[in-house]
């Protein structure tokens, strides 16, 4: 990629050109309001309002929302990474397995170093993050250099990561993680907000800023929109994709650390559907599976729809399988509406 700062001839007089109508506040708002994210947000508000109306004292409490947020924190971290991947029109099915693998590595390192101190905990956490990053790099390299479709690559690493975790542990969860990890980060709070929520919120904020305001984010969109155009424009598409998959792996590793802190055990059996839940959250949030479109803020909304549906249904006493039906229905309806909008736009502009 060229390092010289190329400057277009029109730079020197930086005068204000006649502003076309597209940049006024009204136009920006109009664009925002027709985006899927806003509709999904309204759905979320509708669901919250609905449950609050039906079971106000039980549902609409700080206690309940705090728990919902804490329970959703791991999925949110994974979903932020998944957002980047899907915007490049890729996919990462391996996130649940990488989460488990990272937790196993971290727990083993902590136990190997021994003791209850922050040294052991810190070393374990770093090891877990590195493990996640490594799987992400494997995914990225296979997708770009071996030219295997992301669906297949990450399906393979899904099996390999989980299988490796089972091999290392003999199929049994690793327990005996230093208690300090659980009592401080796992279930501890800062100013009434659980640490795990703070971590997830920080990841979301950094992810949102990176995606919308930096070159890294723009390259992500460009590659998803038209990878060949990006390549011709001088963007090193392969290197960028490796970074994006590495990011997804790293965040899966971080989610593994958060899970380990909360449950003090590696919960091997509990993450087999994390990948689909993350993908559903990302798509619900307005990201297109075809690439080029999406936001982290949308994913934030998308994560909470299933989380609140599950919580509300348990409070209402609805049979568990209805939850899955409902989440699936909302997902289909949201994507369908998105498709209708797109088709309308296409039809409208073909003059």
């Amino acid at each position, binding site marked *: 990629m060229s390092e010289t700062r190329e400057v277009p001839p029109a730079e020197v007089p930086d005068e204000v050109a006649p502003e076309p109508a597209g940049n006024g506040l009204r136009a920006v708002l109009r664009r925002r309001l027709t985006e899927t994210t806003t509709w999904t947000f309204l759905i979320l508000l509708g669901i919250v309002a*609905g449950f609050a109306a039906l079971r106000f004292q039980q549902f609409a409490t700080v206690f*309940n929302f705090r*728990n919902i947020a804490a329970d959703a924190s791991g999925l949110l971290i994974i979903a932020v990474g998944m957002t980047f991947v899907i915007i490049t029109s890729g996919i990462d099915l391996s996130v649940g397995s990488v989460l488990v693998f990272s937790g196993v590595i971290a727990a083993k390192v902590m136990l190997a170093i021994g003791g209850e101190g922050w040294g052991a905990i810190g070393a374990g956490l770093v090891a877990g993050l590195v493990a996640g990053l490594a799987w992400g790099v494997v995914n990225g390299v296979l997708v770009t250099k071996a030219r295997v479709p992301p669906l297949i690559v990450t399906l393979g690493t899904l099996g390999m990561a989980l299988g490796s975790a089972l091999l290392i542990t003999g*199929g049994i969860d690793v327990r005996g993680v230093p208690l300090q990890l659980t009592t401080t980060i796992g279930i501890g709070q800062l100013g009434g907000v659980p640490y795990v929520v703070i971590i997830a919120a920080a990841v979301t904020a950094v992810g949102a800023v990176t995606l919308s305001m930096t070159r890294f984010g723009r390259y992500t969109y460009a590659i998803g929109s038209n990878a060949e155009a990006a390549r011709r424009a001088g963007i090193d598409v392969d290197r960028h994709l490796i970074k994006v998959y590495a990011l997804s792996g790293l965040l899966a590793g971080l989610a593994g650390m958060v899970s380990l802190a909360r449950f003090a055990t590696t919960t091997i059996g509990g993450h087999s559907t994390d990948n689909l839940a993350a993908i559903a959250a990302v798509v619900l949030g307005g990201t297109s599976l075809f690439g080029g479109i999406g936001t982290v803020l949308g994913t934030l909304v998308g994560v909470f729809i299933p*989380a609140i549906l*599950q*919580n509300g249904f348990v409070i*209402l006493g609805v049979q*568990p399988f209805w939850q899955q039906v409902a989440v699936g229905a909302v997902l289909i309806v949201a994507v369908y509406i998105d498709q209708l909008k797109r088709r309308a736009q296409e039809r409208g502009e073909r003059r």
Partner: protein
Amino acid sequence: MRRRWLVGTVALALLLAACGGDDDGGGAAGGGERQYKLTLIQGVKGDQFYVTMQCGAQAAAKAAGATLDVTAPDEFDASLQTPVVNAVVAKKPDAILVAPTDTKAMIPPLTQAKAAGIKLVFVDTTTENGAELAESEIASDNEEGGREAARALAELTGGKGSVLVINVKPGISTTDARAKGFEDEIKKTPGLKYIGQEYSNDKPEIAASKATAALAAHPDLVGIFGTNLFSAEGAATGLRSAGASKKVKIVGFDAGPKQVEDLDQGIVQALIAQKPADIGKAGVEQAIAALKGEPVQKKIGTGFVVVTKENMNDPDVKPFLYKSSC
């Protein structure tokens, strides 16, 4: 136009769900008596042991004029049971009957439940601090159950050869106790060599592969003890596919319909049936006693029935076979 569609669909879905749910209107209310709201959180969905427990609990709740909601996580895992517990706590029932899926990991959410003023009764499994956290801990005497299994297996195998235990995973109070009881008791039969425990992670497929692997490694394998429903069922499947059903005797724990069928076909030779309906019933009774301020039994040990092909239709055995629905 489409926006109204979407909001309308969602609202309709919510309304239907609300109508379809067990809201607090059910159950007969007694004279001036308070109607108690109870919730049962099982260890995992779709397990007949827990379904039978639910049947016993529901019958007892009805008799006492209380309402009982039932819910469960998709897998027997603490990371999936925690959000369910949290949501149930938000619902603020008077008491929760729960089967904790991990002796340590479930302590924080259950502590929160107790702090919210909800009475806890632990059914089947428990936590490390169960005596402090729960009003009552009700389970089969699992060590004794393990000993029963050892005795049954010693008899079935004629006392000679290698025996294997297929357990679930460490950290579950009940199955750990069963394995321990078995281990202690099997020593009394010197002709039987105990080759150790394998773990199934509560998945029949894993139990099956562990069984066939053990068979390959130990040709003199004559007996397997499966410490829970899925472990025993999986072991039976593995042996059947290896063609070793006649050679290796299986004693299982729990008597679900599939296992009873296996028993009937001679694939499994004996089942140690717990009395989950009794556990459920006792759970409800203790919860209500705690709510009324009456004396509570801190620990209750329910019994076992040894089921074989010969006795499975006897009137004093048949009622204890597990149900798939109430």
